[in-house]
């Protein structure tokens, strides 16, 4: 209760001057803290309380719980039973569908992310010119990315590439008879989902456009004066200067792609023959279809490890391919 009184706002103007901060930083033990520090901490604590509560209740707590569940067999009805590493062992040695899920997810990420980034970069370069109606073009190319993650578009995709869908109708008009639904064949099913992902290149494109605007025009001008052609200027000036954003988009898109769910559930439901059984979809089936919560929790931890490894790899290699203008490497 004492602290509450001390946090009286009339003292507040005393608290935040710069001179105060230096000694504060040196203090280590609770006993040595000045009253002012405690007051500051109390005020900050009040502001941070909702977030801290959420962090403990909805993030840290569940993560620890999830780690525990991953070592148990738990069907939500009876109490969790400790099984040690069984879930993890089962994943990699007994569960063929899990390995398939892993394989198709990697395939999806490795195909869709580079394609998406390539398209977004290409369009960003074209749309960062001073073209007439460039704002409209940007909006048009961005809209699919706004809508693409929705259930409605996933349903649309299912029809478009279905047996009687507009793709086969269009092919029919060209004299080619589509005999099969694109979704019912393993190779083309994956293709339709990759297409759906690539179709949404709009948001990385906007990020690239913003980056292109930041590139000082003097660099290009002087290179041009020195006789560098357009392609050369692109590869030697523009592209290196964009690498921080390529890096940023790559991390963002990779993390998102590993967790793709809506399109796989609605367009293909993992089929045919598990050809599009993406990781999160399989996790959903195991956890919320078969109520194998322990197994699903273990799968989630492995996914987290995979995403972290890839993020770390991108970060570690970034020093070799990401360039910062201010000389930082």
């Amino acid at each position, binding site marked *: 209760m004492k602290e509450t009184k001390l946090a009286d706002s009339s003292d507040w103007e005393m608290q935040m001057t710069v001179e105060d901060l230096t000694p504060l930083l040196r203090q280590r033990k609770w006993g040595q803290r000045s009253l002012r520090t405690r007051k500051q901490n109390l005020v900050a604590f009040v*502001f941070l309380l909702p977030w801290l509560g959420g962090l403990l209740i909805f993030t840290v707590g569940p993560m620890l719980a999830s780690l525990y569940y991953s070592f148990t067999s738990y069907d939500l009805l009876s109490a969790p039973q400790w099984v040690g590493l069984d879930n993890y062992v089962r994943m990699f040695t007994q569960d063929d569908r899990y390995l398939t899920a892993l394989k198709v997810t990697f395939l999806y990420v490795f195909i869709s992310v580079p394609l998406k980034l390539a398209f977004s970069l290409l369009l960003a370069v074209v749309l960062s010119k001073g073209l007439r109606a460039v704002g409209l073009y940007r909006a048009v190319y961005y809209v699919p990315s706004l809508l693409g993650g929705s*259930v409605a*578009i996933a349903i649309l995709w299912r029809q478009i590439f279905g047996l009687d869908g507009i793709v086969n109708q269009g092919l029919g008009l060209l004299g080619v008879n589509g005999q099969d639904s694109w979704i019912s064949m393993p190779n083309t099913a994956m293709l339709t989902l990759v297409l759906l992902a690539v179709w949404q290149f709009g948001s990385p494109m906007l990020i690239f456009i913003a980056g292109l605007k930041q590139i000082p025009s003097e660099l290009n001008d002087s290179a041009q004066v020195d006789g560098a052609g*357009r392609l050369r200027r692109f590869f030697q000036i523009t592209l290196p200067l964009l690498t921080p954003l390529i890096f940023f988009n790559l991390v963002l898109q990779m993390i998102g792609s590993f967790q793709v769910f809506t399109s796989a559930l609605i367009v293909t439901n993992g089929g045919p023959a598990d050809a599009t059984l993406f990781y999160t979809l399989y996790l959903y089936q195991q*956890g919320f279809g078969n109520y194998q919560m322990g197994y699903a929790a273990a799968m*989630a931890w492995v996914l987290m490890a995979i995403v972290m490894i890839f993020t770390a790899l991108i970060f570690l290699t970034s020093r070799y391919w990401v360039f910062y203008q201010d000389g930082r490497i």
Partner: protein
Amino acid sequence: MREEAVEMVRVPQSVSVSFFPANWWSRLLTHIVLVVGGLLMLYPALWMLSASFKPSDEIFSDPGLWPKTFTLDNYVNGWNGLDTAFGTFFLNSFIVCALVVIGNVLSCSLAAYAFARLQFTLRRFLFAIMLGTIMLPGSILIVPQYILFKSLGWLNTFLPLTIPKFLGTDAFFIFLLVQFIRTIPVELDDSARIDGCGPFQLYWRIIMPLALPALATTAIFSFLTTWGDFFSQLIYLNDQSVYTVAVALRTFVDSTGTSDYGAVFAMGVLSLIPILAIFLIFQKLLIEGIATTGLKG
């Protein structure tokens, strides 16, 4: 050499980076390619709009964009396609979105103010933790959160979708707001403090009004991601009376199968209208939000 000399004279035109020479023909070509590409990009969505006005047999026979027979039956059938009318689902989605927007704006701005303006023990450490939670893949939390909410008896309510947002779980917006608040001059705080403002008044009367653009970005993206969210709504809402539009659409397409695509498309089109409306109204904020922070629209 002469060409280069000519180009040098015209430097202002070739300031921006481009593959193409800045002459008339190549600009026309660029426009043609962009228009064709743009139509191709929009074609699926436009076709869905058109199909929602077509009778079922035409949907499966005509890839064209203009309905030969124009009908509103799809909308009527779709609206009442499930036991509960779609009006309820739209209302549910709006309620969830409104609560998430309010929750995110309040909780994230409180935390952001502390990180941006206050000095306290463990500030750097907590800030690093906050950044770490942004990177956390959401799927890691799904299983334990489901178990938690189930044990609280929160299934089939909006609580699992909204209460966490009042506790700042969308840490990305905290980061966004911290970055913005840091750009507000500290002198404003100082003078307000001399006028007798305490930290809470400072937050509410000075920082919040000045951070309005960033708060608007937070609100817009909270709305968009919640409206577009499917996974958590699918897991927590199993009773038709609490379905959101996304979950209802999925149930609808599974129950009708391919028999009544028109009605499904009609409801799909309606489900996209709020997103498009937000885009049209807040286009500038939205595009800035993505361009500067990488928020997913």
